[in-house]
């Protein structure tokens, strides 16, 4: 019996009957049965009966457990897998049907039988059957009823809240404990809660139930009621006293705190409230507390809203200043490098990355969200823009309540810090002035600020004039750089004058003028000038002045009209820049231009151009375009040699190098300038000495442009080749100059060829750039050799260095022994040395070294969670869940339909049985009646027959 499953399998061979027999035998049902005899005693019989009963039970179990194989239903699987259990592979339809039948008999049949025979539940809840009432109304009505019912019932003596409902706030209970935790302890006269002590009730109410338990005193004696009462009274009195004491102490403490309030307040808001105000507030606080609470409240509110107290800015140490400067320079250099590579600067990149981040991870919506998608973004933008500005007090009055919480202007990231510094300093300055701080330096500074404020006064104030100007002068060098940094800042400065100029002390890395102070010259010059409107006015201003004085005049003009001084100064300075550009043109077009003047004016042009970067860029681009047009026109008309740029163009190209960052990959001004230079060098033929000098100047400008980025400029190399070929003696058996790697535009020019090598060497001067200047070919050669060496060094890292420079070697070797041998030698050596090292750096190119594209593999994809029972795993979790749900629903639906169908069949069957039964009964009844009637009829006929017989007899 132990393994019922194993048994049938072991004896598979036999017939069903044999199997049944053997099973019964094994169960011990068969053998015992025969031994029961009728002749045994009663006890025996009883035991036998019980055994029989047992056997019957066993048999029943057996049959229920051991199914007939004919009753089993198998589903054949296609692939047999060992140890795999498939649900529903083996079914017992008969058993299932039977179970279902039984279940139905228990439920459905019972229900059917009871139908229309039992009472039903009627829902009499209020408003349940009233369709005119809404759900809420119903609920409300029911609740009201419930309430009134309860109050009617009146739990009068139950002080405790009966229901478990609890008020909550933020998910926390508002019970007493929570309150106490929050520090809002209820101060009550009674120590205990409103409820009367259990013991008290027990002992005192209704005369006490003293009989139940004995209360014993300390002496072991039972106390009398009177004593107990007294004790209670005494205790309560003691408690009361204690509480009063406590309260008094608290009050005292509070008073003390009140007294100290102003001190604390001072600590919190340093030097915002002047002392006079402070005393009045104290008075008002102490004397008329009732009326001044509003004041106090507002103060508390302010404290809550205001930023926490923070330390004032301390002076920065030398080290810090140096580190800051270093960091700033490093950042500038990094930006430059990035631009050189053609990448966006760090800030730009951050900006874009930040934007991308936003797009990438949107905040997951939460319960409190109002449903707008941009909520997260909106919050962060708000936080970014809306920065609380500290409240600013002046004479105890809030001065900036308009600005308070207003949106902070968006400033350039670069100037952010500086701005804040400035703001703070401004405030603290103002404070120190107001509070009458007698700091000497402070007052001097503030005085100076005032002076710079209203410069009209200076005219009257002759005594102090010189001093002031010098002061301003000193500051100016620092101040102007500040404007360069950002234009926004200027506009801000205009709004919030007076700006302290000395704030810029923290930025020593800004460009400064390298100036040789010339006190004697300065003393002769007037200090104020009317800002010139036109170039003619400007000419009148600088007429008959030496170059240094002219520079000083412009310097002073710039100081007087510094942008931070507000007013129309920005416009004035822009005009000044225009005038300076015009003046530059004017200077260059003079028959004998003063290079010294140009030199001295140039720093101002540079810094003003940097200050008004877009304006100057526009000017440069327009001028470059004009130059380019002129060049094309000259080249087209065949005046090749005349196409070389004039002095003005040269100066402008040189200025570009100083104003703009020439190492950028793409630059709106520098790139066109560079193309223009290349065009000059490539297309203009060298015919005379001036051409060569101009070309060399351009090469030097190119060198300045490319010092940092070391970009390759083929035009320069070609120009050197051309020039050297023209300067140096011809090779044997040739009739015209030739350079192996580049064509020479005018190869037959002989005027440049050096014949006399023993001439004294004079350095090339700037004057040689003017037309009709005397130029020694020897000095041209000298300069070109130096420049060539420079360029060779610049292109040291070029992989094709030897290809580029080796054609120069035979040329240079043609230089005979002369004063120029040294630079020539130097150039040759440089080229040879670098050429020798260049191949070492040269590796075959590996430009196509990419990550190899993997070959498509046919290795089966393994699924770690694979199961043969599951058809496929949907990687999309949501979809998978949905599909699962759908499947379940379908299954349930089908099951329900099947059940319903079976129910219907069951009901029909049952009805049929009932009908049949009824019919049988009816038939029986009818038969019975008919039988009765027939017997009656028979009896009646028999009677009638009798009667007839009798009548007939009679």
């Amino acid at each position, binding site marked *: 019996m132990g393994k019922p499953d194993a048994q049938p399998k072991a004896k598979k061979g036999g017939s069903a009957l044999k199997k049944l027999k053997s099973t019964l035998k094994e169960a011990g049902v068969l053998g015992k049965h025969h031994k029961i005899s009728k002749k045994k005693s009663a006890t025996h019989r009883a035991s036998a009966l019980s055994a029989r009963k047992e056997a019957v039970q066993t048999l029943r179990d057996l049959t229920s457990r051991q199914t007939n194989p004919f009753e089993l239903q198998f589903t054949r699987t296609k692939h047999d897998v060992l140890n795999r259990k498939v649900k529903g592979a083996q079914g017992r339809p008969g058993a299932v049907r039977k179970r279902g039948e039984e279940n139905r008999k228990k439920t459905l049949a019972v229900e059917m039988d009871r139908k229309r025979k039992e009472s039903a539940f009627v829902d009499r809840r209020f408003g349940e059957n009233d369709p005119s009432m809404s759900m809420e109304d119903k609920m409300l009505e029911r609740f009201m009823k419930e309430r009134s019912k309860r109050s009617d019932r009146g739990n009068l003596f139950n002080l405790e809240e009966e229901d478990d409902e609890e008020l909550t706030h933020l998910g926390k209970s508002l019970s007493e404990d929570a309150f106490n935790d929050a520090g809002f302890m209820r101060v009550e006269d009674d120590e205990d809660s409103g409820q009367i002590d259990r013991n008290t009730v027990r002992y005192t109410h209704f005369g006490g139930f003293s009989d139940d338990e004995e209360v014993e005193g300390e002496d072991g004696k039972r106390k009398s009621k009177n004593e107990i009462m007294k004790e209670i009274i005494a205790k309560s009195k003691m408690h009361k006293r204690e509480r009063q004491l406590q309260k008094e102490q608290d009050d005292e403490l509070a008073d003390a705190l009140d007294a100290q309030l102003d001190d604390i307040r001072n600590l919190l808001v340093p030097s915002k409230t002047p002392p006079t105000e402070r005393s009045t507030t104290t008075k008002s606080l102490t004397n008329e507390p009732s009326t001044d609470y509003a004041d106090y409240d507002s103060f508390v509110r302010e404290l809550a809203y205001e930023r926490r107290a923070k330390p004032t800015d301390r002076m920065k140490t030398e080290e810090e200043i140096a580190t800051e400067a270093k960091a700033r320079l490093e950042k500038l250099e990094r930006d430059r490098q990035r631009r050189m590579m053609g990448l966006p600067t760090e800030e730009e990149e951050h900006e874009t990355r930040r934007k991308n981040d936003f797009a990438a991870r949107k905040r997951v919506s939460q319960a409190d969200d109002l449903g707008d998608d941009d909520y997260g973004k909106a919050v962060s933008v708000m936080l970014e823009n809306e920065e609380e500005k500290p409240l600013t007090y002046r004479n105890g009055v809030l001065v900036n309540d308009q600005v308070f919480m207003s949106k902070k202007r968006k400033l350039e990231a670069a100037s952010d810090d500086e701005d804040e510094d400035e703001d703070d300093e401004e405030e603290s300055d103002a404070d120190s002035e107001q509070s009458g701080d007698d700091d000497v330096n402070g007052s001097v500074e503030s005085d100076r600020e005032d002076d710079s404020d209203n410069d009209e006064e200076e005219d009257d104030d002759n005594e102090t004039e010189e001093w002031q100007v010098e002061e301003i002068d000193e500051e100016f060098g620092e101040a102007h750089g500040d404007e360069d940094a950002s234009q926004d800042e200027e506009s801000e400065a205009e709004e919030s004058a007076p700006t302290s100029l000395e704030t810029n002390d923290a930025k020593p890395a800004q460009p400064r003028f390298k100036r040789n102070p010339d006190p004697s010259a300065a003393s002769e010059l007037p200090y104020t000038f009317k800002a010139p409107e036109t170039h003619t006015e400007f000419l009148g201003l600088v007429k008959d002045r030496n170059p240094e004085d002219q520079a000083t005049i412009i310097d002073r003009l710039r100081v007087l009209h510094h942008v931070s001084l507000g007013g129309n100064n920005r416009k004035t300075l822009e005009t000044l820049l225009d005038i300076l550009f015009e003046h530059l043109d004017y200077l260059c077009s003079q028959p004998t231009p003063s290079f010294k003047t140009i030199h001295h004016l140039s720093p101002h042009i540079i810094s003003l151009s940097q200050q008004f970067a877009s304006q100057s860029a526009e000017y440069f681009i327009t001028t470059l375009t004009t130059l380019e047009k002129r060049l094309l026109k000259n080249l087209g008309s065949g005046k090749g040699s005349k196409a070389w740029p004039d002095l003005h163009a040269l100066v402008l190209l040189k200025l570009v190098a100083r104003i703009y960052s020439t190492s950028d990959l793409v630059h709106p001004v520098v790139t066109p300038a560079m193309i223009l230079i290349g065009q000059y060098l490539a297309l203009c033929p060298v015919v005379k000495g001036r051409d060569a000098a101009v070309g060399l100047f351009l090469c030097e400008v190119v060198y300045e442009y490319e010092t940092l980025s070391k970009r390759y400029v083929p035009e320069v190399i070609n120009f050197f080749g051309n020039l050297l070929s023209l300067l140096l003696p011809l090779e044997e058996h040739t009739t015209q100059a030739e350079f192996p790697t580049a064509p020479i535009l005018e190869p037959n020019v002989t005027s440049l060829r050096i014949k006399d090598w023993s001439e004294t060497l004079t350095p090339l001067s*700037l004057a040689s750039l003017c037309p009709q200047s005397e130029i020694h070919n020897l000095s041209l050669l000298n300069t070109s050799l130096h420049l060539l060496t420079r360029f060779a060094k610049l292109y040291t890292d070029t992989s094709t260095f030897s290809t580029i420079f080796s054609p120069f070697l035979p040329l240079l070797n043609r230089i005979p022994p002369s004063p120029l041998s040294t630079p020539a030698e130097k150039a040759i050596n440089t080229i040879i040395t670098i050429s020798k090292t260049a191949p070492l750096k040269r590796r075959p190119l590996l430009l196509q070294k990419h990550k190899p594209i993997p070959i498509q593999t046919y290795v089966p994809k393994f699924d770690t969670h694979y199961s043969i029972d599951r058809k496929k795993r949907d990687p999309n979790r949501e979809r998978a869940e949905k599909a699962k749900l759908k499947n379940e629903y379908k299954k349930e639906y089908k099951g329900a339909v099947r059940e319903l169908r079976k129910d219907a069949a069951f009901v029909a069957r049952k009805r049929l049985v009932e009908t049949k039964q009824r019919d049988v009964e009816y038939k029986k009844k009818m038969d019975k009646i008919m039988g009765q009637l027939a017997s009656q009829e028979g009896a009646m006929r028999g009677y009638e027959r009798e009667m007839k017989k009798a009548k007939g007899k009679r």
Partner: protein
Amino acid sequence: MVAAKRKKGSATEIDAAGVRELAKECLETKGKLNNIVTLLELCESETEEIAYASFVSIGHVYATLLERGDFKKRRAARDVEEQDDVSTTVAKWLRENRSVYVQLAFSYLSHPEPAMQVAALESLMSVVKDESYQLKEFHNALYQQVVEKCVANDNMSEHLLENLTETINTYDDVRYYFYKDFGKILGSTLDNRNGIDSKMKTTSKRRKRSFATDKLPAVITTGFNILSRIRDPVEESELGTYLYESDSSREKKPVVASAKEHKRVFSECWLAFLRQSMSADMHKRVLLAMHKKIIPFLSKPTLLIDFLVDSYDHGGAVSILALNGLFTLVTEHNLDYPDFYTKLYALFDKNLLHVKYRSRFLRLVDLFLSSSQLPSYLVAAFIKKMLRLALNAPPAAIVTIIPFVYNLLKRHPACLCLIHREQSPEQVGKEAEDPYLVDEPNPALCKALESSLWELQTLKSHYLHTISGLVRVFEEPIAKQPSYDLEDFLDHSYATLFESEVKKKTVAASPALATHTEIVGIFEPVGRQISDFACFEL
């Protein structure tokens, strides 16, 4: 005669209105025919205005007379001989005068005043027309002289040229005879020069037609000017406008109506022209016109081979230009040209990327190298050579070369080793000079395939960002990128590059500024440039 004399006396004071008056008189009254003599004399007057007026007037007078029939030889000679002996005499006299007039017109063709030239040509053409109608065929003898005078004209004005070509373009027979005559003239010149004229039975007339050697360049130039302006030969159906319309009654088709004949004279003329020795400039101009204006219309284009091959071997820009014609011959006329690629390779010299025919040449080279069946050593040699030249080229040329090379590399993956070469471990560290031999004329021997394109590295740091950007593309997987359309890059110049830079909308609000720590005057070195030597002293 008296009147003429009288007039002659006052000829110096006469004005243009007077001249017209004379002509009018001459036409109105028969007796005043002698005015013609006066007019002819006036034609040689100093004042150009009067000369012009009288010349035009005479032309008008003759035209009218001819129309009236006073002129006609036939009528004068045959029909009216007996009756009107006077008119015969007049006609004869008139004819004589007219030959003077024609000679005058010839001389006026080289008159310094363009209007005079044009008038002369017009009158000559009308004479030719008239004579042709009298002869009943095109009066080529006269026209030949016109052609000769025109091409040998020292001061050929633009207007005359225009007028001449207009006539030639309008009338098909004039064009035909122009080609014929010009070809003849050139042929005889060549014969003369070559000294073979002795062998030929040259008539004195023919000898006369050839030019002195010193005049030849001018003739060539003028001839080319005219030839290049003549419209292209047309199909037979389009022929039909003639200066001399022959009678339709004739059965035989005149030669001028045959397109084949036209083609023949065209070919002959051009071939004779091309045989002349030409200046370099003329050579280039001819070559420029070659593939469009000449080759398609020649009866036997292969006859050009000599000229083109000579030009191709000439070297320099001429070779570059000859390439185009040669290409047409090779592709369309089955010319087999040995060592074509070697010669093409030789054309890549230091000047190539600097000349203005650069784009034209590169277009052709692109075509030549478009075959994917070319050996990789050849393609590699071209690539390497081009990049080597690009090292010293203007940016506009580099902008063309780089996409060019890129396309070549893409087309010939065997050359990818030029930009990507994995070294075996023992080779590492043994780098020597570039194995490529620049001066080797044979692309098969220049070892380009063993080299690497280091030039690209250098050009990557070119000052123009466009170029460095283009070079960067070589670092991307070359198989995945599409080829460049070379047309986008061919026609660049400094001007276009500059313009595109200036017009570019600046991305940043303000240009990046220099970060020098101190601002000094421009003639003072700053930052890292401070060195021991100042190039220019203040």
